[in-house]
């Protein structure tokens, strides 16, 4: 609802105001425009200094070889080439892609299924509120809990024992941690996207469903011709949101299953964010700020490309209802 009304209120007055604006606008308009500096100035300043300047600096640093202190040497794209030749980075990048696409697909399918189930379920508010809550908890918590639940003498194994599983898999073996992380992400993030998609589905006026019933549409047809087209833009937004948040995944990997133990999580589980952090700040080797920033810029490039593609792919004529 909010989206369509917003667009409408924004679009309609514009042509009416055009001629006025040419003459300098009404007095309140003119007064308002004078507020540009005091109103937008502080936000602009904060944002530019603390966000845009570092972002531009990041591009510059990524083109240099730099250990944080001492001289910077300009090396062009060498950092990028070097990073892509680093098997650790390739592994991290692959993991980030797995999180983005595999976990993303699972979340979306589940969230949409949950929405359809929730839509006309009894006590849907309670269920929705509960599955949303993990979104508000620091992912560290899940990582730490996993260590307790999956450790050899932990809860899962004590549950499996009576079932006759005497040799349970080594859950926290280095190779098994990443799939567990992916599963945890699905479990804890689905609720958030369910809430968003549900808000989109709830916008659909009930008379559409009544129409479907009168026309004798099956549940599948109703899904295909009513629910999906009318929530299409919500899906697009969700996809963008997930793209942006999935490349930032850091905390849960950092502590998953107590894996950080001596300091670093096992390399099989790294995401690009972890790679960036370790390369710059681990204290294990000389910090390579150039390479670290290059890896971060690559993740930014990934986000940019995907968001642009998504907007292309999801673009449909907005359906006003």
């Amino acid at each position, binding site marked *: 609802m909010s989206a369509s009304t*917003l667009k409408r209120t924004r679009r309609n007055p514009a042509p009416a105001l055009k001629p006025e604006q040419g003459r300098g606008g009404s007095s309140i308009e003119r007064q308002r425009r004078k507020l540009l500096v005091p109103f937008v100035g502080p*936000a602009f300043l904060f944002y530019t*200094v*603390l966000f845009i300047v570092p972002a531009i600096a990041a591009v510059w640093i990524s083109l240099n070889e730099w250990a944080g202190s001492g001289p910077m040497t300009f090396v062009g794209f060498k950092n990028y080439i070097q990073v892509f030749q680093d098997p650790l980075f390739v592994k991290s990048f692959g993991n980030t892609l797995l999180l983005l696409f595999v976990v993303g697909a699972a979340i979306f399918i589940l969230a949409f299924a949950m929405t359809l189930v929730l839509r006309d*379920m009894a006590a849907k508010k309670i269920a929705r509120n509960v599955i949303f809550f993990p979104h*508000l908890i620091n992912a560290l918590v899940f990582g730490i809990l996993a260590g307790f639940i999956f450790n050899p003498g932990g809860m899962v194994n004590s549950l499996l024992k009576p079932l006759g599983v005497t040799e349970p898999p080594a859950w926290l073996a280095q190779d098994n941690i990443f799939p567990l992380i992916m599963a945890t992400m699905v479990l804890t993030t689905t609720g958030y996207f369910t809430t968003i998609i549900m808000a989109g589905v709830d916008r659909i006026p009930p008379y559409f469903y009544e129409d479907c019933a009168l026309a004798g549409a099956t549940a599948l047809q109703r899904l295909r011709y009513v629910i999906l087209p009318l929530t299409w833009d919500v899906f697009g937004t969700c996809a963008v949101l997930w793209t942006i948040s999935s490349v930032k995944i*850091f905390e849960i990997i950092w502590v998953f299953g107590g894996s950080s133990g001596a300091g670093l999580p096992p390399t099989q589980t790294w995401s690009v964010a972890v790679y960036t952090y370790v390369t710059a700040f681990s204290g294990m080797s000389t910090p390579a700020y150039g390479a670290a920033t290059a890896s971060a810029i690559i993740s930014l490039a990934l986000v940019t490309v995907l968001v642009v593609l998504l907007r292309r792919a999801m673009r449909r004529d907005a359906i006003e209802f």
Partner: protein
Amino acid sequence: MTALTSSPSEQAGPPPVRRKRNRGGVSPALQADHNWVRSIGVFILWAVVVLFIAMLVWIVLQAFRDTHAILESPWGLPTSFNFDNFATAWNVSGFALATLNSILTTAVSSFVCVAVAAPAAYYLSRVENRLTDGLSLYFILGLGIPAQVILIPLFVMLDKVHLTNSLIGLNLVYIGLSLPFTVFLLTAFFRSLPLEMEEAAALDGASALRTFVQVTLPLAKGGILTAFVLLVVGSWNETLLALTLLQSSDKYTLPVALISFVQQQTYSGADWGGLFAGLCIVILPMLVIYIWLGRRLTEGLTLGMGK
């Protein structure tokens, strides 16, 4: 229709199906289709709901047991409500200071961020020209930049002005980082407010500034509160930047303290009791906020999607 059904050949057919009573007064079109796929879905959903609640209750209960008992039987219940774990976590492991730091950082950065973003969002929502379009786009740009991109330059910059390992520096970073989202959310919110009241105020001779402070701000209380709560949740849980920028344990925020606590355990043996107490300190404030202002949170997260 009537002609057909009353024709003699049809009358010999099966008796008309009796319609089910419509319980609950929901029109049949809106009622659930009952089939087994759905039933499975409902079952799984409730299973997840129960799992989440049980998990939360379990964490809180374990925080009252000592490590030995927890490891002995992870399913056990506390025999008595002793706050030993909380006391240890609070006093010995430095969670007290970390909590204080977290509360300070969260409150200050969220408040300043809203205070700075609200006027900007108001301006961007009310004045329509090429400049404001460009500015809106400029702010939105930040939504797509992952934090790790600016991590290193921020560290270097703040180090130059001696603001690393300082809560002031962390506050500044949080404000800058949350601005794009806050401006975006509040712009959408201001746009959804009716213009009539402001026009009336202008006709009564109120200046634009006064209109904003006395008319629009009170109207926008809900949206501003929503933005504030979302910022509180974000800053309370932020980990990567805090981990990078804070080095001494007296400056740690809760997530960093938690990480350092986990890392100490690998040397000193697991203190699960203390750890569960620490988890409670991280989770429970969010639970309180959620129960108290949950509707605002979910609304805010879905309102920001107008774009």
